[in-house]
């Protein structure tokens, strides 16, 4: 019997070597790589150089002089490049991370860059943590106009970091830096005590010394959704944040508040989306010089489904009735909003079944009436979340797609040369 077994084994080996006796049909199908023909060949190489063509989740900022700053992830690093004139292109990419880090790089989690009035450059990003659904928010700065960046440092003040993700970054006119994120420390401590805790929490910190050090990590709100980006914008010196909250028992509707001002928390809309799941779809926020808050979001609630826009009333305690936009049949998603004076601009992406498309619409009366949506770009591959920025008096869309890389599109003039918003 033993001999038979050995013979059999030998037979197998011999047959395999000889390529003889056919075994079961090979299950492996020889498919083309799904990225084949989508991503540029140069970007698929292991040693692909950092570039805006190969950039993953590039995110723009335009400073008050109209200078473009784009930050992105590529493999295990974070890079930045700048341009004073898009026609002439960008500077050579500068690597911000000194050692490889597991940078979280998806539409909802992406590096951010912001330039202060004093020309300091601040960057934040999230890395994936060791444990599941954990991460760490990092901060780095350049105080020499972008020639060099400080070693990125984790923003947590815990002895043993639990988890921070979905960071937002803003710098006020007076130079205070705000960083806000979704934190799991409350959730973990509840779990340790065998107590229930709905969602996770919204935390923030600030720096008054150009990012050399940060204040204690401070909780702003309990019970946020765990998996959607936050959106921060400034109302003068005041940091205002919008996020997907978790109202009782599991209603993932949106809320807005001034950081740290618990009484200022307002529910933007009663969409009533009850889901024990992850939408992976956070809001965007823009605030005008006069303090009007404009917000866009996605919901699939009992009350409504799709992309919606609303703006705050004079008291900021209520928002207008949600205004729906985008083609829900075409997966309209990930909108951005930009407001300046009475002008409000929206952008979002859709998917036709074949192609990714970028749309744009505008309002000249503070968001009361809207233009017809305009399709401004298309791509035959996957595309990133779009963003709106103002540069030299024009609204631009910033969009990245796997086939074309990063691009910007000049869309509409604005009445005054507005300061760029927070990212």
């Amino acid at each position, binding site marked *: 019997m033993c001999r038979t077994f050995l013979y059999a084994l030998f*037979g*197998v080996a011999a047959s395999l070597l000889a390529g003889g006796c056919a075994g079961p049909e090979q299950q492996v199908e020889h498919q083309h790589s799904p990225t084949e023909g989508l991503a540029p060949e140069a970007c698929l190489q292991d040693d692909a150089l950092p570039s805006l063509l190969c950039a993953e989740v590039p995110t723009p900022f335009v400073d008050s002089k109209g200078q473009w700053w784009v930050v992105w992830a590529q493999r295990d690093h974070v890079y930045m490049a700048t341009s004073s004139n898009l026609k002439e292109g960008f500077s050579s990419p500068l690597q911000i991370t000194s050692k490889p880090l597991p940078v979280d790089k998806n539409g909802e989690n992406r590096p951010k860059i912001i330039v202060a009035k004093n020309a300091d450059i601040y960057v934040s990003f999230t890395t994936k943590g060791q444990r599941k659904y954990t991460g760490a928010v990092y901060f780095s700065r350049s105080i020499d106009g972008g020639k060099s960046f400080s070693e990125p440092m984790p923003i947590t003040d815990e002895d043993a970091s639990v988890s921070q993700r979905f960071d937002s970054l803003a710098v006020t006119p007076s130079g205070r830096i705000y960083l806000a994120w979704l934190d799991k420390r409350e959730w973990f401590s509840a779990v340790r005590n065998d107590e229930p805790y709905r969602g996770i929490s919204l935390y923030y910190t600030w720096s008054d010394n150009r990012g050399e050090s940060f204040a204690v990590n401070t909780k702003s709100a309990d019970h946020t959704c765990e998996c959607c980006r936050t959106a921060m914008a400034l109302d003068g010196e005041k940091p205002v944040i919008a996020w997907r909250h978790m109202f009782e028992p599991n209603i993932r509707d949106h809320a807005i508040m001034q950081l740290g001002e618990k009484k200022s928390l307002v529910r933007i809309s009663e969409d009533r989306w009850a889901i024990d799941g992850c939408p992976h779809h956070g809001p965007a926020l823009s605030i005008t010089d006069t303090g009007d808050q404009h917000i866009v979001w996605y919901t699939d609630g009992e009350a409504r489904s799709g992309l919606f826009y609303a703006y705050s009333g004079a008291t900021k305690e209520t928002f207008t009735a949600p205004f729906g936009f985008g083609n829900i049949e075409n997966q309209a998603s990930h909108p951005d909003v930009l407001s300046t004076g009475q002008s409000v601009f929206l952008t979002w992406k859709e998917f036709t079944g074949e192609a990714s498309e970028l749309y744009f619409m505008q309002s000249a009366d503070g968001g009361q009436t809207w233009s017809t949506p305009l399709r401004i770009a298309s791509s035959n591959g*996957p595309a990133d979340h779009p963003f709106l920025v103002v540069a030299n008096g024009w609204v631009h869309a910033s969009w990245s797609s796997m086939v074309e890389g990063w691009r910007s599109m000049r869309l509409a003039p604005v009445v005054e040369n507005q300061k760029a918003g927070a990212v």
Partner: protein
Amino acid sequence: MRYFPGACVLMSLIVFATFPIQADESQKFIQGSFEAILKSHKDKPLIVNFWSVTCPPCLVEMPLWKNLRLNSPEVNLVLVSTDKPEDVDRIEHVLNRYGLADATSWIFADPFKERLRYEIDKKWRGELPRTYFISRNGEKKAYSGMVEETVLQTWVKQEVGS
């Protein structure tokens, strides 16, 4: 050896016996995969669960699938991770941890996720977990968020009558 025509048969047996271990490794989910999954489980009650390592509720839901396999083996279960193929270690770590190492597992392998989703279900906008209950007669029901135990049990009862 010459008088051992059974070598091929034996070899096949050995290879077949070995193959399930490999078959348990996650397969690449591309365009057409959903249709292929439906076809290969035709006439059987099937649950397809889309999940991700970045979705906490998806993990909370995992014990439900483990119990389903233990208690209702007549129901076929397919788990599809919407992460990337390079996340395979994290994905398999999660499956191992929840006693689902030998469950049928697929991983999204097309960066054009909208295209995959559109093909699976135009109405699915990417929220997770997303579960499809497919009856023997092919009738499909979609469910967003964690499936409630009672919802699952009612469906299983209706499908397998136990």
